[in-house]
């Protein structure tokens, strides 16, 4: 870990931390505001207890990432809202359960004394039951706080910025500095919030002014810093949201688009690490303004086509279809193709005399194939399997960043590689040919949301990308991140310079004036 790499990451901290704090605090305060009254109701109306606690428990058993991803189709939105709702649900169980346990745990003779002295049921609640249950309730809130701070890192794939941006992009680009900074920041935040609540509790229980002031000052400091951290990123109406799927090439391209937009005097904001379909839906709904997709992906996954016309034809048909069906504008093909291909280590290809997928089919029953999370459920896989009658001994899925290493180290025999990935050369892999043309071409295309397509200044800023990046240049940029450990932002500057889209002199100027 070099100092420069760390400085690179720390520059992102205010933005990520600000978003993370906002998300966490809003979810937690809402969680408390919803759960306390609900828990009190449940202790008063016994038949509600079982259903309410069961629903909360079930929400808790859904893995955090899945719960977040589920919110996107349910709410039809990406970004803050689905992340907020999912985290709210996640915070509910500990607060609900502890409040109910705390209130029901108050000794019956104490309750009878309260009633016998003439307290109304409201007075009993506020003067006796809640104060006596407070330690248990606060323990629940502390648990919820730690969970929510942790789970908020998972909101990156649904388009909400958080400290998870460090972790997701760091894992994809094998940048361990980013991953470490993200984890450390999230852990520190969890500890600080948890201890602040504890301090507040001690202050109240011990009636200590000093502790009370400390806890209050701490909370105020956090609220103020959240506000301050949020100001520079507060959304103006003219911010351009640039999306990216969770792999290196996408980060680099999103950075390149953002840099280009900034040079043109526009404000750009990145939404990284989003799933393919989430990203496309976000584009059509206008929550994301632009990103780079691939013709074959749209052809097979969005248009659900199974026929395979020649490359140029497919591109033209896709362009027209997107415009007609979704008013999505294809601003242009960037020039390179990032195909799905099956890759094997070179030595293995030579030993088994593998050149094409056809050659592979004979050996498949003795082989293990590794692929990214999406591949085996994508129509491309089905087409490939049927065309070549592929039948592997075992299928395994990997995070894309680990897939190549798995092939190199022989953990799997074949992988579904991206042809522009820098690691194909670096790890000595060979991409097998596709003589039956079962896989569609994957021209990188720049797509704009309907609203973005109407913004002349945006269109003119991005126009220059048409047809200027060739396979080699893209692979070189990707390699800088995946193999050399550069940040996507640096690799994007390299890419823009390589294709003549940026004058180096401009780099340091205040670009968002």
């Amino acid at each position, binding site marked *: 870990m070099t100092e420069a790499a760390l400085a690179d990451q720390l520059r992102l901290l205010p933005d990520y931390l600000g978003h993370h704090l906002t998300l966490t605090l809003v979810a937690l305060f809402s969680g408390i505001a919803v759960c306390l009254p609900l828990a009190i109701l449940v202790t008063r109306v016994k038949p509600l207890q079982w259903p309410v606690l069961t629903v909360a428990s079930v929400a808790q058993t859904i893995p955090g990432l899945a719960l977040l991803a589920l919110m996107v189709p349910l709410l039809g939105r990406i970004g803050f809202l689905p992340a907020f709702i999912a985290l709210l649900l996640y915070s509910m169980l500990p607060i609900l359960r502890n409040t109910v346990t705390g209130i029901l745990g108050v000794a019956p003779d104490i309750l*009878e*004394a309260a*009633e*016998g*002295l*003439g*307290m*109304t049921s409201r007075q009993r609640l506020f003067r006796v039951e809640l104060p*006596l249950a407070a330690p248990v309730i606060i323990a629940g809130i502390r648990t919820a706080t730690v969970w929510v701070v942790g789970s908020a890192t998972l909101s990156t794939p649904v388009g909400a910025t958080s400290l998870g941006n460090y972790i997701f992009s760091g894992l994809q680009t094998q940048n361990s500095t980013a991953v470490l900074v993200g984890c450390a920041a999230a852990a520190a935040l969890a500890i600080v919030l948890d201890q602040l609540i504890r301090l507040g509790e001690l202050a109240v229980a011990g009636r200590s002014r000093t502790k009370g002031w400390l806890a209050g000052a701490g909370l105020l400091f956090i609220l103020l810093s959240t506000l301050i951290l949020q100001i520079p990123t507060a959304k103006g109406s003219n911010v351009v949201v640039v999306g990216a799927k969770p792999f290196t090439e996408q980060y680099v391209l999103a950075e390149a688009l953002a840099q280009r937009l900034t040079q043109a005097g526009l404000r750009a904001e990145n939404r990284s690490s989003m799933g393919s379909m989430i990203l496309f839906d976000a584009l059509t709904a206008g929550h994301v303004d632009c990103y780079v997709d691939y013709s074959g992906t749209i052809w097979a996954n969005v248009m659900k086509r199974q026929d395979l016309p020649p490359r140029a034809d497919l591109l033209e048909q896709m362009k027209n279809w997107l415009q007609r069906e979704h008013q999505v504008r294809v601003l242009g093909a960037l020039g390179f193709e990032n195909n799905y291909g099956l890759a094997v280590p070179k030595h293995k290809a030579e030993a088994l005399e593998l050149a094409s997928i056809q050659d592979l089919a004979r050996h498949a029953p003795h082989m293990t194939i590794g692929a990214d999370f999406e591949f085996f459920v994508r129509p491309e896989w089905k087409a490939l399997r049927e065309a070549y009658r592929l039948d592997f001994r075992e299928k395994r899925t990997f995070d894309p960043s680990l897939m190549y290493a798995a092939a190199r180290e022989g953990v799997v025999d074949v992988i579904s590689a991206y042809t522009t990935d820098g690691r194909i050369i670096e790890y000595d892999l060979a991409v097998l040919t596709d003589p039956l043309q079962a896989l569609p071409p994957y021209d990188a295309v720049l797509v704009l949301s309907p609203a973005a397509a109407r913004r002349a200044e945006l269109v003119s800023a991005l126009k220059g990308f048409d047809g200027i990046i060739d396979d080699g240049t893209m692979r070189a940029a990707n390699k800088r991140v995946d193999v050399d450990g550069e940040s996507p932002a640096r690799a994007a500057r390299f890419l823009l310079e390589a294709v003549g889209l940026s004058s180096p002199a401009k780099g340091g100027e205040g670009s968002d004036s």
Partner: protein
Amino acid sequence: MICIQQVSKTFDQGRSFAVQEVDLEVGAGEFLVLLGESGCGKTTLLKMINRLVEPSRGRILVEERDVCRVDPVVLRRGIGYVFQGVGLFPHMTVAENVAVVPRLLNWEPSACRDRVDELLRLTGLSPRTHRDRKPHELSGGQRQRVGLARALAARPRIMLMDEPFGALDPMTRDGLQREFKRLQQTLNLTVVMVTHDMTEALLLADRIAVMKQGVLVGTGSPGQVLRNPSHPYIAALMETPRRQADQVESILRSGGEGK
């Protein structure tokens, strides 16, 4: 002051009765002790007076008003209650515990403070050392004193007391009993006190009401229940204190012979 008319209570739809057809009157300023073995229904009867338990049948009048027709909250704030297990609020200090009812009645904070100190002194506690303690920092006897102070705080005219001196050692109990008896006379309190201790009943009561298995078997002044009990059960109950008194007397007499 308190008028109990044909009151019954069942907890199991009439299969058994915790209290059965009890008729009892308590006059203003009277100290009535409800005496009986444990489980005979004393607590249940006491709780029906301030409606912590609803009667299954019959009627209870407190100061001429049917308790089932008045707001129970108002009723309870006007009646002091000392609970069988003391039932102090563990999260409140002694002062806060004592001031509960005055606060519910919206007394001025300064009036509450003065009243707390007055009551702590009255029940033999030192305001300075005890007012800011939590219940768990007190001895059993001190807790019972605080329970008594809490019941007296809003100057009720009626006190309901459920074995208020139960958990005390004999010395402390004797002291506190006598202090309370004096207090009851000076304040002219109407008291209904539950106990299963025959001696306590005899020493404190103006009148004793004896219960057995939910039924009131008879009432009478301490002298009456000792000398001509109206029911064999009362006579049997009084056998113990009488025998103890005889033994104590004979010890005293033999000691007087100056061996």
